[in-house]
């Protein structure tokens, strides 16, 4: 038993070390960072964070990211719900082929789509809007959401649907007031994964925006190259990108593992 916990503890320490270093660096002034090695911040400063919270190009990066991630999560889950219901309850012409085709979109490298996406979204006049990034990210999030939701819906007995119809429920009323609440956990897990993959993606987010909808990740890469080597600022910006994810994980902590395990492969 003792030996087992050593493995877990070592792994957790290994996970935390780089994160600790990033956070520690965000509280150091630039002179101290470049001056030499120090395990803890010697001159503790909040100056890096102050820059981010007072400079609009910085804090708008966060707002933009949160807007398109939220939009993406809403769109992905909303269109995936009826589709997952169809896959879990009915057989129809080409259902298996369609399901597989959806999943193949999860396999497309983002690098392949960067340029065509730029042209497509420019052509329809959505370039540099939050909606463009949100829609582009549905490419890999919708298949994933359908897959996860279908797994959860498969666990709900069909008798539930039949009883509701016998009781005189119309389909939309049954779907929204009985069926969706019964797979709440699944909706939570699907939303979590949509949030996650949209939040961490950079290539498409960067390609589809210029100024108005620019994600925080793109602001960071630009700063890294243009403003020389402001490591403290970069570290502070990085630290702040961890927080939304940490909050979201906390809410779904009991369902994360289950989410994938229930999907069918």
């Amino acid at each position, binding site marked *: 038993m003792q*030996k087992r*916990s050593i*493995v877990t503890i070592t*792994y*957790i320490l290994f*996970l935390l*070390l*780089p994160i*600790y*270093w*990033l956070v520690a660096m965000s509280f150091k002034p630039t002179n101290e960072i470049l001056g*030499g*090695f120090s*395990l803890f911040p010697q001159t503790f400063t909040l100056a890096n964070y102050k820059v981010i919270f007072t400079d609009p190009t910085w804090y708008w990066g966060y707002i933009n990211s949160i807007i398109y991630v939220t939009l993406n999560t809403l769109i992905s889950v909303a269109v995936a719900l*009826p*589709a997952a219901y169809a896959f879990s309850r*009915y*057989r*129809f*012409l080409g259902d298996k082929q*369609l399901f597989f085709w*959806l999943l193949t979109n999860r*396999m*497309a*490298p*983002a*690098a*392949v789509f*960067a340029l*065509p*996406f730029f*042209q*497509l979204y420019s052509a329809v006049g959505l370039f540099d809007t939050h909606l463009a990034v949100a*829609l*582009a990210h*549905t*490419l890999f999030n*919708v298949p994933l959401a359908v897959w996860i939701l279908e797994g959860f819906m498969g666990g709900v007995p069909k008798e539930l649907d039949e009883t509701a119809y016998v009781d005189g429920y119309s389909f939309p009323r049954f779907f929204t007031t009985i069926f969706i609440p019964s797979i709440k956990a699944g909706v939570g897990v699907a939303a979590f994964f949509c949030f*996650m993959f949209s*939040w*961490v993606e*950079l*290539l498409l987010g960067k390609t589809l925006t210029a100024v108005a909808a620019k994600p925080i*990740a793109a602001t*960071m890469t630009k700063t890294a190259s243009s403003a020389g080597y402001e490591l403290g600022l*970069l*570290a502070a*910006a*990085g630290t702040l*990108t*961890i927080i939304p994810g940490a909050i*979201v*994980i*906390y809410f779904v*902590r009991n369902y*994360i*593992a289950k989410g*994938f*395990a229930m999907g069918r*492969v």
Partner: protein
Amino acid sequence: MKTENQKAWFFVLPVLLLVAFNALIPMMTVVNYSVQETFGDNMFFWEGLTWFENLLRSERFHASLGRQFLFTGLILAIEIPLGIAIAMSMPRKGFWVPFCLVIMALPMLIPWNVVGAMWNIFTLPDIGLMGYFLNHVLGISYDMTQNVFAAWVTIIIMDVWHWTSLVVLLSYAGLVSIPEAYYQAAKIDGASNFAVFRFIQLPKMKNVLTIAVLLRFIDSFNIYTEPFVLTGGGPGNSTTLLSIDLVKIALGQFDLGPAAAMSLIYFAITLLVSWLFYTLMTKDDAR
């Protein structure tokens, strides 16, 4: 039993339209480019299969494809066994379980370029924690901007740090679903730890492991941002993986034709290998 109902297509329609807009139109654009040559000004000339032929003979493509397979192979060989081992060593219940799960999921929710930047800061030779420790405490000369081996070790460790948790979470989900009675039966039979692993735990984890292997293959094969931010493909071209090379050709040199041909071959390889993994890992179920 599912009922036959063609109206189900209406439920699928929103997804179909959305994904078709995002996947079919860009894919047709790529196919279009892959058979043409452009000199700008929207002038296109028919090239047939020239780009494909050039690419399949190009040493640069062979080299980045080789590096990509080496990277993905190493990632799978390290992360899958390591993930299973960590999942088996985790407590099954109690106060520490949610704590472990939250910490383990954390790296996966950090934006990919931040992961690259974080490891860059972590490994700087004289002022990064890992770089300082290796150079000045252990006395091993370490600088990933100069040394090819160090650069490879760094991108591998970074990916292990970033994604092993996915394998852990999935294996863990498989493990906790095994009823206690199975273990009791094994104990009565006097089964060794290895026998318990081989005949109870591993078969029970098979479904989730299939997902883990597939997702790790797909994502490590398509990896772009993290190594790009960390090493920029260097030193030299030593860590220029397939995506990095593709972006260089498409957006850097703006060679649309060759880049499109490369995209299609890239996608085809990903599909083919995913299909192979899937068929191999599920072939016993069919019997």
